[in-house]
């Protein structure tokens, strides 16, 4: 896919998103959450490039959200909370990463899952500190020094999420094109060759892991500041599963995939829940099955396929 086409598509999508948010006020919230989850899934995409699936990425999402919840009373400023959450999640990613990058495939996935469930249990059991399952309320922080009204605050969060999504999207696209990103693909195809070339597979994977943790932390910070109430459910395995679900739905082929997937996921869930409050899980499951059966490349695969065919015909 040409660089220009993808950038155009991203711009169109961003404009469409803002237009939808303007037309339907309630969508602002849902789309902000979708963008945040898209950023977290971008991180998963990096690891997928190396053929590794993390079934515990909610660990970083939750740590970002709880970083916001704990720091917000002391530093009620969104532009401070975001980097703080990213830093914290990055450090956590480094520590966890040092262990898990020694493992591959199912062991990698399961270890991640186990560690995220440890965080879940801690958040739930350290009741005096975290208020357990009831969770912690987050007062809306200032944005760039301005105390916003709640209506503008919701807009600010959406725009902030959009800017970060575009930024991280461009970054991941560049990273995947760089030698570090190419080496990730090398881990998937044949790790030994990589080592023969003098590249340490572990370090390559660790770098990607820490980056993905940072993205998870940023996503969690946005989720925390947008929902303004964080609960341990964010670290639960279903939350990790949701991220992997979005990755598959969106497709791992390009940086737009996670955002497509996240928007599709949130909207399907909202509309399924609105039309069939009792059966929304079944509808989500059916959508995923259809994607796996008929569009293994995900939504992004479908779109890039269509565009590729057209480009072929036009030439």
């Amino acid at each position, binding site marked *: 896919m040409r660089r220009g086409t993808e950038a155009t598509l991203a711009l*169109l999508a961003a404009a*469409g998103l803002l237009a*939808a948010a303007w*037309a*339907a*006020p*309630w*969508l602002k*919230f*849902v789309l902000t*959450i979708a963008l945040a989850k898209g950023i977290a899934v971008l991180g998963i995409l990096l690891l997928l490039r190396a053929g590794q699936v993390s079934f515990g990425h909610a660990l970083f999402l939750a740590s970002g959200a709880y970083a916001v919840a704990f720091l917000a009373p002391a530093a009620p400023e969104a532009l401070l909370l975001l980097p703080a959450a990213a830093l914290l999640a990055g450090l956590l990613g480094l520590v966890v990463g040092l262990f898990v990058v020694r493992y591959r495939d199912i062991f990698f996935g399961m270890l991640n899952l186990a560690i995220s469930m440890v965080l879940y249990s801690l958040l*739930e*059991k350290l*009741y005096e500190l975290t*208020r*357990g*399952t*009831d*969770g912690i*309320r987050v007062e809306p922080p200032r944005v760039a020094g301005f105390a916003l009204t*709640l209506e503008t605050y919701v807009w600010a969060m959406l725009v902030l999420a959009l800017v970060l999504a575009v930024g991280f999207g461009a970054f991941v696209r560049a990273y995947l094109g760089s030698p570090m990103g190419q080496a990730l693909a090398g881990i998937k195809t044949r790790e030994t060759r990589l080592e023969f070339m003098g590249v340490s597979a572990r370090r390559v994977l660790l770098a990607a892991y820490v980056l993905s943790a940072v993205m998870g932390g940023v996503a969690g910070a946005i*989720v925390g500041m*947008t*929902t*303004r*109430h*964080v*609960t341990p*459910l*964010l670290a639960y395995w279903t*939350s990790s599963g949701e991220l992997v679900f979005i990755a598959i739905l969106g497709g791992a082929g390009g940086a737009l995939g996670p955002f497509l997937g996240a928007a599709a996921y*949130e*909207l399907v*869930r*909202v*509309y399924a*829940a*609105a039309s069939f*409050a*009792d059966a*929304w*899980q079944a509808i989500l499951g059916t959508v995923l099955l259809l994607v796996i059966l008929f569009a293994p490349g995900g939504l992004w695969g479908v779109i890039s396929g269509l565009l590729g065919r*057209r480009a072929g015909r*036009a030439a």
Partner: protein
Amino acid sequence: MSTPTPLTRRSALAVAAGAVSGSLLWPGSGRAQAQKPAELKVGITTFLSGPASVFGVPAKQTAEMLFDEINQAGGIGGVPVRALFVDEAPGTDHLVGEFRRLVQNEGVQVMFASISSGSCLACTPLSDELRKTTILWDCGTQRIFEEGRHPFAFRTQGYATPEVLAPLLYLLKTKPDFRTLAVINQDYAWGRDSWEIWKTAMDALKPGVRVVAELFPRLGAPDFSTEITRLLAARPDVIFSTFWGGDLVTLVRQAAERRLFERSTFVLPVAEASMQILGRTMPAGHIIGTRGDHWNNHPRPKDPARLARFVENYRRRFNEYPIYPCHHMYQAISAMQAAYAKAIAAKGGGWPNDQELAAAFRGLEFPTPTSTITLREDGQGLEDQIVGVSTFTERFPFAVPKDMIVFPAAMVSTPVGQKSVDWLKTLKPDLLAQVPAPIAG
């Protein structure tokens, strides 16, 4: 000639995409607030999946049944009512998004929020932000009105403090000479909170009770044999447990099999909802509560015909007895009816806007199948508590209480503006003298 074609196609694609998303947006309805709407929409968040759906689904059924009855009788102020349900199970971000959608897009006029305390804590600030009257219809956390003011939120039932304090007072009144106590609660906020309330109040009212075991098994655990073994070994005089739903059923079955009920007296404040499932397995002679006063064998309901009608209609339609979440839903709907009647009367027949509706809720008095509930100035409802000892009668195939004590809500609720734990510390043993005598039989 090849360039214009993709451009038109792209624009065609954009138009198509726009049309699709446009149809998805469901352009909003119900903007006109002050005029009488064609339909009164009520958003109800409840558990439709997961373990807490044992409460959520009966409550949903109750809402459907009562809304049908209201519509048959001509609606509220001549406007038919419609319920829109939201599943609480997917978590806070989904719930908060749905709350916004219902208010901002569907034009819902009243929200009923949440079984889970976490959900209520997330939804109440939204009621402030969106200025939408929100009835907290089932959640029990004391934090809501003790940690902040919420001008649009009202709780139409009791809450954790009276629901734990009443069984404690019952125990102190009827079996005052216990020396040791154990607790087995689910390991999450309610389990921890209810134990803190019990312990604080017990230390104030009867100092010196030895706590021989504090067990907090995981929520939804399939097996409690380790805990039961420890309880058998510790031989506490009393075992306090705020277990609910499937966990309570499992605990009672396993404990009954190992004769734990013969050694210790259980105090089960949330027992009522599991009694139908347990049937004869529930041992007699243990203290049971119902998070309110709505027992099927209420000793003196204010309006016996109303209670009988509700129970009979529910049984006819769903083939089971209503449990406490059904009554809590009834209370919320009854409060909504009373508030609309009050607001419409105050406006001389006009339809109230959000502020006028919320104003009508403050200090509202509304009927329930068993009594009358008043909403305090902070929004908290004053619901009496009835606690009794489990027994079996001819009338019901499951355990019901006998020797019931009706605790007036004001006696067991934290006064406005105080925090529960601080207030409980100030309780004096002479409070027991004010406890009414059990109603024999």
